[in-house]
């Protein structure tokens, strides 16, 4: 379990030191006024693609000795577009997506407990409505 805490710590440290936890950086990104955030997300994707291709070509096994497989996501449109849109509204408004929320909580902004409870409420409401909204 401790290795996951270490991974989380590195995640928190990285996003904090590169200012990706900043409301102002998210605002700047949605105004296309700086390359910084696009550089972070873009370079993560480029390196990520290379690593995933490497996993596939070498047929890498995970720590338990099973072949690493990445499940294909369901090929629909509605849930990704509508759900993504709603997520985007909240991301820009609060200036923090789920990982920065935990990081800012640790940085001492205790008001993010309210954000956490609100996000859990949102997830719960989604669970209740799931069968009645288009996917």
């Amino acid at each position, binding site marked *: 379990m401790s290795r*996951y805490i270490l991974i989380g710590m590195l995640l928190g440290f990285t996003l904090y*030191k590169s200012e990706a*936890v900043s409301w102002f950086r998210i*605002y700047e990104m949605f105004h296309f006024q700086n390359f910084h955030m696009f550089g972070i997300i873009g370079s993560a994707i480029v390196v990520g693609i290379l690593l995933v291709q490497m996993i596939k070509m070498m047929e890498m096994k995970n720590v338990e000795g099973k072949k690493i497989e990445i499940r294909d996501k369901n090929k629909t449109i509605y849930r990704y577009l509508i759900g993504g*849109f709603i*997520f985007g509204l909240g991301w820009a408004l609060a200036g923090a997506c*789920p990982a920065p929320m935990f990081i800012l909580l640790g940085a001492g902004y205790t*008001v993010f407990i309210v954000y956490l409870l609100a996000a859990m409420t949102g997830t719960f409401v989604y669970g209740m409505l799931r069968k009645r909204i288009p996917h």
Partner: protein
Amino acid sequence: MVPEFLLHLKEIISQPWPWYVSGPLLAILMFLLLYLGHEFGISENFRIMCAADGAGEINEFFKFDWVSGGWNLMVALGAVFGGYLAAHYFIPVDGNIAHVSQATVNSLNELGFNVEKDKVPLVPYFYDWQYLFTWRGLLIIAGGGFLVGFGARYAGGCTSGHAISGLSALQLPSLIAVIGFFMGGLFMTWLIFPLIFPWIH
């Protein structure tokens, strides 16, 4: 005494990290999690926490073995520690500043923020209990949190699950989700912010 080179190292990592350090590191973290048998996705924790609080008794969406998501809760807990360390022990020379562009500073001032270049704080003043009890603060923190929690589960992932993990695996649904993220973000920033912010001070 702490060796000199360690102090130097601390000084170096305390400075703001450029995108080309941060981005590849995120990909490496995703890779480490895949190696450990898991997929990177932080927003799943909200569902795990709902399940841990007994939501499974009300709705089957939350009826699953949430203990198997313990690893993900540990990643979130680690992120809390990481944020604590970075914010308190690795402060850059000029403080915790968001080094946004001059164009952004100008736009922020038009919204009524009153900021100067290289002096924009990393976090805005409304991340505070005092502002939570105003309608704008409540809208930003609680409203934003609700939309993020609802939207992330509806879309089946957030920035880590779709933008990083999903696009790295060349998943078309993740591309649609990321387009959705940006449409929502642009709608909020360009159309809603001018209605919320001019009177905040």
